[in-house]
């Protein structure tokens, strides 16, 4: 039976099935913590544990799915071009907000984890926690962290931003929809952006663009900021 699960089609099928199932559940019960990706991941992990299937065997098929992350990042460039016109009016302020927000996201996570004495490979895996999963994974590959840890935490950050972001920002006195959208995209990538679209169309567009811009900023700076704070590998 183990050999059967080593067929790539198993990993491909269960990924698609779990994701489709997660979306159906979300449609029926509209509750924010029931994120389709989270449900799909929990379902697949449970399935693998129950049937005693190694992750490596699942990933023989899974890697055909995750391969598409590469072209998807390129597709974000097209999305950016399409929506770029809509933010032109506030472009400078928008870029300033994403740049400073994005950099403070990287700096604070590195500093907090260092203060809490978390091992280096975890800090390297989490430095890019605010940006969209495919970009965060690539950054982690360059910094020496573990991409799977990055993916798990990035998804958690997105769900946190999606569930609590607008509430926290409103409590802190933020009124502008554009501000809320930009903040969600900068701090909580695509999953935060989904929530921004619920606030308003314009907030969603700003959020999506903030996600792309912070992806680039974080990709460019993270390796250097890690080096600056932690020194090079011994």
């Amino acid at each position, binding site marked *: 039976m183990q050999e059967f699960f080593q067929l790539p089609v198993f990993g491909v099928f269960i990924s698609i099935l779990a994701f489709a199932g997660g979306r159906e559940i979300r449609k029926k019960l509209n509750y924010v913590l029931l994120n389709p990706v989270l449900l799909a991941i929990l379902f697949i992990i449970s399935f693998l544990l129950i049937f005693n299937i190694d992750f490596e065997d699942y990933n023989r098929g899974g890697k055909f799915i995750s391969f598409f992350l590469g072209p998807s990042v*390129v*597709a974000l460039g097209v999305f950016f071009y399409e929506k770029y016109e809509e933010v032109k009016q506030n472009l400078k302020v928008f870029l300033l907000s994403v740049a400073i927000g994005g950099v403070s996201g990287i700096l604070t996570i590195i500093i907090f984890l260092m203060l809490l004495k978390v091992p280096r490979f975890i800090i390297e895996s989490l430095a890019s926690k605010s940006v969209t999963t495919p970009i965060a994974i690539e950054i982690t590959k360059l910094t020496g962290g573990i991409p799977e840890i990055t993916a798990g935490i990035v998804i958690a950050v997105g769900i946190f931003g999606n569930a609590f972001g607008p509430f926290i920002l409103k409590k802190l006195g933020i009124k*502008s929809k554009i501000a*809320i959208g930009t*903040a969600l995209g900068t701090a909580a990538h695509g999953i935060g952006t989904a929530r921004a679209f619920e606030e308003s169309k314009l907030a969603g567009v700003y959020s999506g663009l903030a996600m792309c811009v912070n992806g680039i900023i974080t990709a460019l700076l993270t390796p250097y900021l890690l080096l600056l704070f932690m020194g090079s590998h011994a």
Partner: protein
Amino acid sequence: MLKALAYIFGFLLLGELITYFFEIPIAGNILGMFLIFMALRLKIIKLQDVKPASDKLIKYLVLFFIPYGVGLMVYFEIIADYWMPISVAVIASTIITLYISAIIIEKLEK
């Protein structure tokens, strides 16, 4: 659709090619994202030539990172030892990022 896919994969390959030859510390796909944006801005390629493929890819973006999320199971025990400091640091950092980013727009927006 086929043309659009060819463009997307072409720019991805171009990004990979540049990082391969110049050893720049940035991923090929991120460079590809930047290059396709520039190509659209400079009107080297047309939006309608790439849009069919890019829309579909973005629509299913979250499906594509499920395998990495599942991979977390391999490292579960390692990070379980640090779940408390990780949670505190990640939540605090995320709230600070949200606030700094939002307050700049709130104060300066036209």
